[in-house]
């Protein structure tokens, strides 16, 4: 058990270290959400007011951008594992006594940590742009925890998928196919009530929507515990399932 924790820690450190040393990567992955934040709030500026529950579109959309940042950051993290496989790093590791589960857990956690840091940066940028978080700093921390669960689920799924198909092209195509609709079929850009009826129904089966609803509540309204608990339970359960899936795929690969 101690070995597993130590191994996971070292793999996480390795993952964080290599990302920090690619400043271009950090800049690029922050550039996109910032662009959304600036561009979308301009495009939909006229949508503020009563439709957005009395807030500006920026105020409404900022939580969505936080969720999207984590979604995209984690959903593509399986590539790291594929690179490790292609470069022979993984098989070299597997020939050591390293705890098997630590490799996959370390990869997933490193991806989640990075996207949480990015989400925090987005919160700061949003605050500078004038977004007012109703629950203050504690609310932001809770929001980051909610998106961390979402990130955990998608990072684990992405790593499991990478192990299942083992091809970068396939992982890329599948991830794109999945993340875009998940984003649009939620209340990320429009309040649920403003969506067509079928979309408003579909979004309740969409994990991304649970993250958006949870975070948005903390930003716009305060602690709406009925929504928050639902978000935490759904995303927590999904994270557990996804990590189990990734671990299962990894064991299949390692043996």
């Amino acid at each position: 058990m101690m070995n597993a924790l130590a191994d996971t820690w070292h793999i996480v450190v390795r993952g964080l270290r290599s990302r920090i040393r690619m400043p271009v990567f950090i800049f690029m992955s922050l550039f996109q959400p910032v662009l959304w934040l600036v561009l979308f709030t301009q495009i939909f500026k006229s949508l503020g007011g009563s439709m957005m529950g009395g807030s500006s579109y920026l105020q409404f959309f900022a939580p969505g951008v936080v969720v999207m940042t984590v979604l995209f950051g984690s959903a593509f993290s399986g590539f790291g594992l594929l690179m490790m496989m292609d470069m022979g790093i993984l098989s070299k590791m597997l020939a050591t006594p390293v705890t098997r589960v630590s490799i996959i857990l370390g990869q997933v956690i490193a991806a989640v940590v990075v996207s949480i840091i990015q989400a925090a940066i987005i919160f700061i940028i949003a605050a500078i742009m004038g977004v007012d978080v109703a629950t203050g700093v504690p609310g932001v921390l809770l929001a980051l925890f909610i998106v961390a669960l979402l990130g955990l689920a998608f990072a684990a799924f992405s790593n499991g998928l990478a192990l299942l198909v083992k091809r970068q092209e396939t992982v890329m195509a599948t991830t794109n196919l999945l993340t875009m609709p998940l984003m649009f079929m939620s209340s990320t850009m429009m309040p649920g009530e403003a969506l067509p009826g079928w979309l408003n129904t579909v979004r309740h089966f969409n994990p991304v929507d649970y993250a958006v609803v949870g975070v948005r509540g903390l930003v716009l309204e305060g602690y709406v515990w009925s929504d928050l608990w639902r978000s935490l339970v759904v995303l927590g359960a999904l994270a557990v399932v996804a990590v189990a899936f990734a671990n299962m795929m990894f064991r299949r690969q390692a043996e």
Partner: protein
Amino acid sequence: MSVIETKALTKVFPGDVRAVDGIDFQVNAGEIFAFLGPNGAGKTTTIKMLNTLILPTSGSARVAGFDVVKHPAEVRKRIGYAAQDVGVDEQATGRENLALYGHFYRLDGKTIKARVKELFELVGLNGYEDKMVSAYSGGMRKRLDLAMGMIHQPQVLFLDEPTTGLDPQTRAHLWDYINNLAKTLGVAIFLTTHYMEEADRLADRIAIIDLGKIMTIGTSDELKKSIGGDVVTLTPCVQKDEDCKEFIRRTEAVLSGKPFVASTRPTDGELAVYVKDGGSAIPGIMQLLGSQGIEVKSISMSRPSLDDVFLKYTGRTIRAQEGARTTFAQLQRKASRRQK
């Protein structure tokens, strides 16, 4: 004492591909043992069964005293591994790469620090400990890769095609480092290669493997002696076409069975004739061929090489270009290095 021992070790992949077909061999402590064979001979598959990356289909293997199937965890503690693809982390320093493996082997910080110093000196990388691996050359990466497999002082180090893709000079250097590691640290090395010279220069004993089977095992000298005295190579034609093959068949028919000819073996455009003493055999061969109206374009004589040994036991030559396999990952890395 043997550190590797296999009994009828076999791996069958889906589609009934018998990659490794019932091999028996043993490697002694401190010995450098080479698996020599062309691509697809089953070399990498053998290494992966021995270092617990894949399970054998049947048969058994003990490495460092433990069964690879029953006690893989015990085996892993006692072995090091450097695959054909260099498994180092480019976004980390040499020390960080080595330290990560030190942690995997449960070494404490102090021990890791001392081993890093010792190993970097042994593989000639001292001074580069804290440089990023992305700035290392191909040969340096490979040496770091070797060092990573040695941090815990294993009993056996597995090297899969250690010098494939390196230029000849770097390759010769690496041989020195491998030798150095083996002799200084007393580790047994199991290496696979398709380079005759590599097996010849490095290995205490060589197993020739082809199509998943071990054809013969021995020291380089023993293997060469098994051929007989000299090899006379006849080149009867300029173009390697059907006529040439027919020509070689005729030449072989004339020579085989003659008292001064031990054996003959045709290859692509050439005929190898194994004789006891080349100097006295050549006039006889020339005379015999002349009397049959067979004209030979060129004739040469040499001491037997491992090439000849390989030819004798497999009926084929290993050609260097057969081994020049470049993986997609290697190409990618080359491209990324060029960009820098």
